[in-house]
């Protein structure tokens, strides 16, 4: 009995006495995924992490903490210790929390470990829709106000941003049918409940290849290698060039204040993981653009994204507070 407690004390002491970061990671790391199982963020996070674990030499236990447009997961990481043992896998949404009044924290309270990849928006339509290109669509909508049904998701999501872009250039009189994600909306598109949907290329790519939906325009400045025949929006409507390229993204983050050597280790691990050929082919296959940004580059990317998007949706009247209040500069 005596012996046991002595050993216990020694173990406890040696554990606490060890310079906590000498051998990071010395215990399991918690990985918090902002979005639900099966979504893009989840799939990418679960695909890259085992590669990064191999480099890191530690285990990352992944869990989905969903709700509040991702704010619940974000806050959980923000409330944990800044010791690198709680890692956030997040998408672009937090950069809009402040203007949407969804929370008072965003990625400025975090250090980006790796901005993994960016999605490419694409406008797709039901196969029976009476138009095939963007100009044809605009002409049809102008001739039939309110008759065309656009799928939408909540304000701040990709569809709302793409719609805001379109409305800023060519105002359209359409009916918006709300869905809770682009997956359900694309299903509805195929069933004819909606006619047009702005979606991320990855979610639509197989449907386009299989002929269950038709592409109208790719919202990017260059064509996608997966779908080289789909015209970009700038090829028909060059006025869109000033807001593109734009796209949702996902990345790995730790809380601000995490020690530099921990950040360096995690950054190296995820950068290495992102290079793995299998992961690269997953990213390509789902129609994403690999970024793998970290450090300075990642910060610049985040700030640029926040400024473009916040002002875009603010000008479209979708925000609850002006980006100015939070010192977000105009692009």
């Amino acid at each position, binding site marked *: 009995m005596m012996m046991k407690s002595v050993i216990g004390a020694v173990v*406890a002491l040696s*554990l606490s006495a060890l310079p906590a970061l000498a051998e990071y990671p*010395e*215990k*399991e790391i918690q990985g918090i995924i902002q979005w639900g199982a099966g979504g893009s963020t989840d799939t990418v996070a679960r695909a890259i992490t085992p590669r990064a674990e191999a480099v890191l030499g530690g285990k990352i*236990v992944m*869990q989905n903490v969903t709700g509040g447009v991702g704010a619940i997961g974000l806050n959980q990481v923000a409330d944990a210790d800044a010791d690198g*043992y709680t890692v956030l896998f997040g998408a672009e949404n937090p950069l809009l929390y402040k203007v949407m009044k969804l929370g008072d924290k965003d990625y400025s309270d975090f250090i980006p470990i790796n901005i993994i990849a960016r999605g490419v928006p694409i406008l797709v339509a039901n196969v029976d829709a009476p138009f095939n290109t963007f100009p044809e669509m605009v002409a049809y909508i102008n001739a039939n106000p309110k008759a065309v049904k656009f799928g939408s998701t909540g304000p701040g999501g990709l569809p709302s941003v793409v719609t805001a872009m379109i409305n800023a250039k060519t105002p359209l009189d359409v009916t918006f049918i709300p869905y809770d994600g682009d997956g359900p909306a694309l299903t509805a598109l195929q069933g004819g409940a909606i006619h047009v949907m702005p979606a991320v290329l990855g979610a639509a790519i197989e449907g386009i290849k299989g002929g269950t939906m038709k592409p109208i325009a790719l919202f990017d400045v260059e064509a996608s290698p997966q779908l080289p025949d789909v015209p970009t929006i700038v090829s028909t409507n060059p006025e869109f060039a000033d807001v593109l390229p734009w796209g949702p993204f996902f990345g790995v983050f730790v809380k601000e204040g995490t020690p530099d050597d921990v950040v360096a280790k995690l950054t190296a691990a995820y950068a290495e993981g992102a290079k793995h050929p299998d992961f690269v082919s997953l990213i390509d296959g789902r129609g994403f653009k690999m970024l793998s940004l970290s450090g300075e580059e990642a910060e610049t990317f985040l700030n640029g994204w926040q400024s473009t998007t916040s002002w875009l949706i603010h000008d479209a009247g979708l925000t609850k507070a002006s980006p100015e209040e939070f010192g977000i500069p105009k692009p």
Partner: protein
Amino acid sequence: MQTKQPRRPGELVFNLAMVLGSLFLLWSAYGISGFEALSAPGAVPMVTTAAMLVCAVLIFRESLRKGASTDETVARDILPLPILVTIAAVAAYALLLRPLGFLPTSFLFLTGLIYYLGRYSLLRAALLSALIVLIIFLIFRIVFTVLMPPGIVPEAEILAWFRGLFAGRGA
């Protein structure tokens, strides 16, 4: 009209609370978007809470008609001591889970309740609890990697140490 069951103690209070609760929820549902549109986010909540209110009023009226029960008391038939103790124990569990951690809290909870309800000896209750908590811990934490709050037990370090031990042996 209906069967004339006697009213149970507290029934009138509960049914009245349901009326007031429904009224409050209806008011709250109205606050979501008012009578903006049929498709407004507040439309379905307003319909459902209105249905609640109508039903609650009908139920309350019905319970007014019943005669009061004579042989039941709140302390014996509605909230006897063991039930109050159990509710308190669950609440205490939730409060202690974060600071104390999963293993100690669960152990204390089980030991306490089994001892209190069953009049087992404290030792038997404790042994039984330790065994059950261990099984639950193995299933949830090890097999399904559900992270329960570790609290004062350095779980992650101990597990890492075990893993190191096995890895060391394997190498």
